[in-house]
């Protein structure tokens, strides 16, 4: 029996995994992937079964925990945003070497157009260099179906499977037909080939040869995949290759059906036979690709001496930003739909820190102290407080990746910079800041680390933060001098005290940590209204 539900792409994927007998999801929150784990956390079946869904400290710990669950024969999923793949990369790439036992699906949610991210990296590249198959749903139903399909594929080939989402699917709702009865979970069972789980050179050399051989069977699986479709068309002047969600934009422009042959790619490695068929039958190929020109570069090659290929590299489609029905329409050569031009009245409205947010008070006090210095530098980090770069604060000089505030401040201090200040949130600190702090402690670097602790993972919507209640202990435990681990409530009434504290610690010639604490205004409101009930 099945029923229809209106689900976000993320939710469809989550429900698909639960219904496929998932035993655990591991994740660190990150837009646009957060809702997958959140869905599992509150799902009735998942709660009854005790499916693991507690947040991990970062994507690497999540990846490795999921691999451990897979080792024991159970089905596991790990979810992250695209840049989380960089954090998880060590575990991920090497999980191709160990292989999987229970089904293991690694979800990477890419963010073309950088709605909430610092770059447009395309996770499909990871699947190729790790040598694992990848899936890419084009709609919510496929996201649901691919959870089970991916777990089965993983068990069939004993290999982790990458599943690539993009923002527009992750955060778009659609009607999904779902099974009413969830499948049973796997029983505990252990890998038959135990050597490949110990990645010593002798074992790895043997395993790597096998993995390369397996690649051919992955290609064959793609050629026979129910998600890769070759749809013939009468006009062979060009064939069109589309991936994932790009398929929808193409079909939006051809409601009566596309006149050209179309190859929809939703499973990788590329289905060689189908690509060759298109090259043989068509005069040219247009590649409409959501993400970086991954397929296009593969087909074109450096020498570019085969069939004529059009796409992002030839300017038919924009090289940056996500695709739209309009950009795809232009690429296929249809006349644009008439529309009004953008209104001149409209001004940009960038996001801002909430009124009543403690980060505001931290930046207010910090800026006032920094006026006393000639050339202060503040290294920021990833979270709501990144918004401190914007007016009216303009308080940050660099933001790069999770945890980089502390290590960049350290490097700057090593170069002779003073004051060299790091500002980092509590959740980002336990994600990737602790190891950098240890480096700074070990050298007693002349930096001040401000941990703006709002007791949650704020930007992604208020998920539990793994360091809550432990931040001081963590800093002292790593070896920070207890008298230079200082705590203050980041409230407007403490403005002057905060200034004094900042000034004192900037002037201390060594490593200091200031924990400025105040609960996130969003979660505080939620907690207050929950209490009322």
């Amino acid at each position, binding site marked *: 029996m099945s029923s229809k539900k209106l689900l976000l792409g993320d939710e469809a994927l989550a429900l698909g995994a639960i219904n496929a007998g998932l035993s655990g999801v591991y994740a660190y929150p990150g837009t646009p992937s957060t809702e997958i784990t959140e869905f599992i956390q509150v799902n009735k079946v998942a709660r009854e079964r005790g499916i693991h869904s507690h947040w991990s400290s970062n994507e690497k710990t999540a990846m490795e925990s999921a691999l451990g669950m897979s080792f024991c024969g159970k089905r596991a999923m790990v979810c992250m945003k695209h840049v989380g793949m960089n954090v998880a990369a060590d575990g991920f790439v090497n999980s191709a070497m160990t292989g999987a036992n229970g089904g293991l699906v690694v979800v990477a949610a890419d963010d073309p157009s950088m*709605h909430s991210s610092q770059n447009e990296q395309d996770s499909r590249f990871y699947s190729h260099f790790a040598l694992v198959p990848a899936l890419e749903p084009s709609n919510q139903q496929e996201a649901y179906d691919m959870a089970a399909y991916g777990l089965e594929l993983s068990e069939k080939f004993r290999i982790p499977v990458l599943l690539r989402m993009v923002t527009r699917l992750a955060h778009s*709702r*659609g009607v999904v037909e779902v099974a009413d009865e969830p499948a049973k979970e796997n029983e505990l069972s252990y890998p038959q080939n135990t050597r490949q789980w110990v990645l010593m050179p002798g074992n790895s050399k043997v395993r790597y040869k096998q993995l390369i051989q397996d690649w051919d069977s992955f290609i064959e699986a793609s050629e026979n995949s129910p998600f890769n479709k070759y749809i013939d068309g009468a006009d062979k002047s060009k064939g069109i290759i589309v991936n994932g969600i790009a398929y929808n934009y193409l079909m939006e422009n051809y409601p009566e059906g596309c006149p050209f042959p179309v190859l929809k790619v939703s499973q990788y490695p590329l289905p060689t036979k189908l690509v060759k068929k298109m090259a043989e039958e068509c005069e040219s190929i247009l590649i409409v690709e959501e993400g970086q020109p991954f397929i296009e570069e593969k087909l074109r090659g450096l020498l570019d001496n085969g069939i004529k290929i059009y796409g992002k590299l030839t300017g038919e489609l924009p090289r940056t930003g996500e695709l739209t*029905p309009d950009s795809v329409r232009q690429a296929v050569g249809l006349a644009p739909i008439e529309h*009004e031009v953008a*209104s001149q009245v*409209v001004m940009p409205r*960038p*996001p801002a820190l909430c009124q009543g947010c403690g980060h505001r008070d931290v930046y207010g006090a910090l800026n006032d102290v920094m006026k006393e210095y000639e050339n202060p530098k503040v290294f920021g980090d990833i979270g709501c407080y990144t918004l401190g770069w914007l007016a009216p604060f303009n308080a940050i000089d660099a933001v790069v990746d999770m945890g980089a505030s502390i290590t960049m401040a350290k490097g700057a201090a090593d170069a002779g910079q003073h004051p060299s200040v790091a500002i980092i949130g509590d959740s980002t600190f336990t994600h990737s800041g602790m190891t950098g702090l240890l480096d700074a402690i070990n050298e007693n670097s002349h930096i001040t680390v401000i941990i703006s602790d709002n007791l949650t993972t704020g930007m992604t919507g208020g998920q539990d933060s793994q360091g809550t209640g432990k931040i001081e202990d963590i800093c002292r435990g790593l070896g920070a001098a207890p008298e230079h681990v200082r705590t203050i409530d980041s409230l407007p009434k403490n403005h002057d005290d905060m200034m004094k504290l900042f000034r004192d610690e900037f002037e201390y010639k060594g490593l200091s940590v200031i924990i400025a604490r105040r609960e996130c205004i969003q979660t505080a409101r939620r907690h207050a209204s929950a209490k009322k009930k």
Partner: protein
Amino acid sequence: MKIDIVLAGVGGQGILSIATILGAAALKENLYIKQAEVHGMSQRGGDVQSNLRISSEPIASDLIPQGGADLIVSLEPMESLRYIPYLSKSGWIVTNTAPFINIPNYPEMETVTAALDACPNVVAFNMDDMAKEVASPRTSNMVLLGAAAPFLNIEIEKIEDGINTIFGAKGEAIVEMNIKAFRAGLEYTQNLLKSR
């Protein structure tokens, strides 16, 4: 039937509950739905929009093409103008006229009003005032939903069922308040259309 709607507002204003209600109503009618939302960074007081597409036939794209929207439904006047390139020639703008000013360079209200007046099909009134008057300040979004309802091709009762479903858990009083706001907005547009 097929209707493409751009829902617009400022992060935190509550456009997504409009989408949720219409989604629930359309699902009950066994219609196809696609609804692209904005989560993450922009939700912190930035401009937010949601593309809502409802149809009796399967829908391909999650995004509405430029010149394709039947409706722009906005909780904020300047935000309604942001999506003008998406409006079809015969499309309608239904917008709150109460500005949400959280940027230093917000345009003069007269220029915003003039730009709206220049559009052929507009329903614009102060929905914050109406919400306050008939129900509670927090129901502006239900006034807006009511004001947009005559253009939706979904039975009014079905939308009210949707409101029931979404707010049901919060108690009967909350449902009633939201229905009141919804009906006030609905009546406003119905009267406007009669006088046209």
